[in-house]
């Protein structure tokens, strides 16, 4: 064991959540941030639309409204204590980002500019409210850059391009992680008192996705193997507007700026599904609406897509019809230049990948797998909790998309994820540092690296009868088609069977590259193992939950069933089999009621 490093706190992942945790942990403890990508390559950088906080820079807004919207958006599955906590911390969190230098767009008074986003409303009028603080359409990029810059300024220790393979636990407490250094292929053991997971989501298990190649669910899979449960894995968000076939995201900000959805017959169809907020309904509602249009034959040219229209003349026409106004009461209008200024990256994506200019043409879009609501169960301080009684696992923390606090419940509202990263990343960092201060290192087991090494050896020595690329594609296809936006017993049973078959076939995958240096083939194969593991939990969870709620819609159980299913599911792996348990939802102020937009 040549490569052993000792840190009080080890953060796995350097996206928004990991950097925030690293920044705060390093103030109180010796901290390392380990990431399989250079920090600035993390997927937080892809986030476009904004980060929510009831700053009220344009119009009246309150954290309570934000809380209610989030609870409603979550289809009442979110834990209300955590949601309230997040929404009340939101204002300070966003201001703190500003103080760190984040270049938000500005109002004429010089304050942070805000835009409307799906599901965020003025609770009194029910009209959309401007709550999403934005930096053009690259808010996530600016958050990621700003946090990385602050980490450099504060001399946080980074281990870039180290991929974590295993979590070490001793006597039921965290003791560190094992990682492989990509550049040399060597294993390193990070001995730690506290470990924070912030590894992001697992959208790559679906065929059409807005997620990065790196989104393979490493953190969730590693902990699942180590006996930690995963919460609400059946809930996955499909974003309504991804670029047709490619899945690249077209931010909801487009609709925030007045864009509308048009079906193959040239009609605006959202008023049918959400009469009050129309194109700004919550994501699950719109994704289902689009799918319904397509299934009923109203896709464009009979294909699987509809149009998103942000051409100024359309925007202005429909804005006038809806009676939308500017804060000063004048009618809302937009020009081509304004579209360009507010959505430069979106325009660029459309031009590059579609050859379409959104200022003069409509964009072909289709729902795309977007966000992992479920994940590693934590409380509102980022501490991992392992059962229905919220028992804390000492020294283990999680934050960001890989965690399930749960503030997003069955469906996340746009802009709430970036907020989640910043708020819970910070608290996880603080808690971990505090914990480390009062704890001693557990003694490392002699064979800390053995599990990771044998996983690698198995892949290196696999028979090679199966090809990882094929398995991966088959997995993505079956997950997208049968465990996607609409789900039913029959298809999901078949899909689960397929996933398990792929897991068996995976045992015969062999890696050709025998080298150590940047053996990306080996690492990708290992990631595929994680995806298969995580996909199974998603399918099992979805098959088990016999109701429709938020992002989980079952054709055979189209109604929400609070009587039986107002509870979180917890999936645990025991002796290679998944077991399902449950945990109550925390309800404080808002009793569940029908969710209409």
């Amino acid at each position, binding site marked *: 064991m040549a490569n052993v490093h000792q840190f009080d706190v080890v953060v796995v992942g350097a996206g928004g959540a990991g950097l925030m945790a690293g920044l705060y942990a390093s103030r109180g403890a010796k901290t390392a941030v380990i990431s399989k*990508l*250079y920090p*600035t*390559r*993390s*997927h937080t*950088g*892809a986030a476009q639309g904004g980060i929510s906080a009831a700053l009220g820079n344009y119009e009246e807004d309150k954290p309570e409204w934000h809380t209610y919207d989030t609870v409603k958006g979550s289809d009442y599955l979110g834990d209300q204590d955590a949601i309230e906590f997040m929404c009340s911390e939101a204002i*300070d969190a966003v*201001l703190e980002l*500003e*103080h*760190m*230098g984040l*270049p*938000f*767009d*500005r*109002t*004429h*008074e*010089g*304050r*942070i500019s805000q835009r409307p986003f799906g599901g965020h409303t003025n609770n009194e009028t029910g009209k959309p409210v401007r709550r999403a603080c934005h*930096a053009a359409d*690259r808010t996530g*990029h*600016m958050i990621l*850059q*700003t946090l990385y*810059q*602050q980490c*450099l*300024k504060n001399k946080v220790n980074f281990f870039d391009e180290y991929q974590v393979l295993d979590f070490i636990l001793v006597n039921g407490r965290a003791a560190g992680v094992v990682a492989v250094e990509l*550049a040399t292929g060597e294993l390193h053991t990070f001995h730690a008192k506290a470990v924070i997971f912030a590894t992001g989501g697992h959208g790559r298990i679906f065929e059409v996705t807005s997620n*990065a*190649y*790196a989104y393979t669910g490493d953190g969730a899979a590693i902990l699942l193997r180590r006996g930690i449960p995963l919460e609400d894995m059946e809930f996955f968000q499909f974003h309504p507007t991804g670029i047709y076939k490619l899945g*690249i995201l077209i931010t909801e900000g487009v609709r925030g700026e007045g864009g509308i959805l048009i079906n193959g017959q040239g009609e605006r169809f959202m008023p049918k599904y959400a009469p009050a907020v129309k194109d700004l309904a919550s994501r699950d509602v719109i994704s289902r609406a689009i799918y319904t249009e397509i299934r009923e034959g109203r896709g464009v040219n009979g294909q699987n897509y509809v149009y998103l229209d942000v051409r100024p003349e359309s925007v202005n026409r429909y804005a006038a019809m809806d009676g939308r106004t500017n804060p000063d009461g004048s009618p809302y209008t937009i020009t081509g230049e304004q579209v360009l200024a507010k959505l430069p*990256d979106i325009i*660029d*994506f459309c031009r*590059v*990948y579609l050859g379409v200019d959104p200022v003069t043409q409509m964009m072909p879009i289709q729902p795309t797998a977007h966000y992992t609501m479920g994940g590693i169960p934590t409380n509102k301080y980022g501490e991992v909790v392992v059962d229905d009684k919220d028992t804390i696992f000492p020294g283990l923390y999680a934050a960001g998309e890989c965690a399930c606090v749960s503030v997003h419940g069955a469906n996340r509202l746009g802009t709430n994820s970036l907020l989640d990263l910043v708020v819970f990343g910070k608290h996880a960092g603080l808690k971990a540092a505090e914990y480390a201060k009062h704890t001693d290192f557990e003694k490392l087991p002699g064979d800390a690296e053995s599990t990771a090494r044998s996983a690698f050896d198995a892949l290196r020595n696999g028979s090679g009868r199966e*090809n*990882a*690329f*094929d398995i*991966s594609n088959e997995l993505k296809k079956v997950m997208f088609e049968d465990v996607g936006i609409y789900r039913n017993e029959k298809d999901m049973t078949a899909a689960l069977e397929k996933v398990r078959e792929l897991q068996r076939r995976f045992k015969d995958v062999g*890696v*050709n*590259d025998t*080298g*150590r*240096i*940047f*053996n*990306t*083939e080996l690492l*990708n194969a290992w990631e595929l193992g994680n995806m298969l593991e995580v996909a199974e939990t998603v399918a099992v969870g979805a098959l088990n939950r016999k109701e429709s709620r938020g992002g989980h819609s079952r054709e055979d159980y189209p109604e929400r069933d609070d009587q039986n299913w107002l509870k979180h599911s917890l999936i645990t792996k025991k002796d290679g089999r998944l077991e399902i348990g449950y945990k109550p939802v925390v309800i404080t102020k808002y009793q569940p009621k029908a969710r209409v937009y």
Partner: protein
Amino acid sequence: MEVTIKIFRYNPEKDQRGNYVTYKVEAHENDRVLDVLEYIKGKIDGALSFRRSCAHGVCGSDAMRINGRNMLACKVLIRDVGANITVEPILGLPIKKDLIVDMEPFFDNYKKVLPYFINDSPLPADGRERLQSPEERARFDETTKCILCAACTTSCPSYWANGEYYGPAAIVNAHRFIFDSRDEAADQRLQILAETDGIARCHTAYNCTEACPREIKVTKAIGEVKMAIMTGKLD
């Protein structure tokens, strides 16, 4: 359509030097070059190594030389480059394996220009945001787009000649702070950039601007920094 793609290969554990291997694959004209590389890696030679993550041009992982020019493999389609493609690693950084280069020298240069917000004055009394007008914000908008992909720096003849040159990416990131009305360390950054390995090494070759996948006017940003050093004016 059939695409002929010639890729620079180098296996540090076997080869003394790099060589080129040609592959013929089926691809659609709307496929990204990255898709073709993924396909080759998946089906033909798993050892082919390159970096990638977001697959839509926002993470900066996959800058490489495609048909002799720096681009992001995920942001260029087959229809843009044609059916005969040459893919090589970016120039001017040590090559680790195939298309993977050592990014450390690049990030080291980036870190030299104090690429972080510095303002030690007290926060506004109400604890709210530091005010900034939309115009002041627009002043440095362009350079906030940088994703640190290194396409610019590794296209710069001055950087090829001399790795000590901080390079356009570092200057772009300095620009982002120098012209931010809220930042207070413009003078420190200008002093660093006025050093021997700073702006004086830029000879307006323009390769950087052409290479930037984020369409940042890199040369212009450098020009503005140069004039800030020459005149001392920060607007």
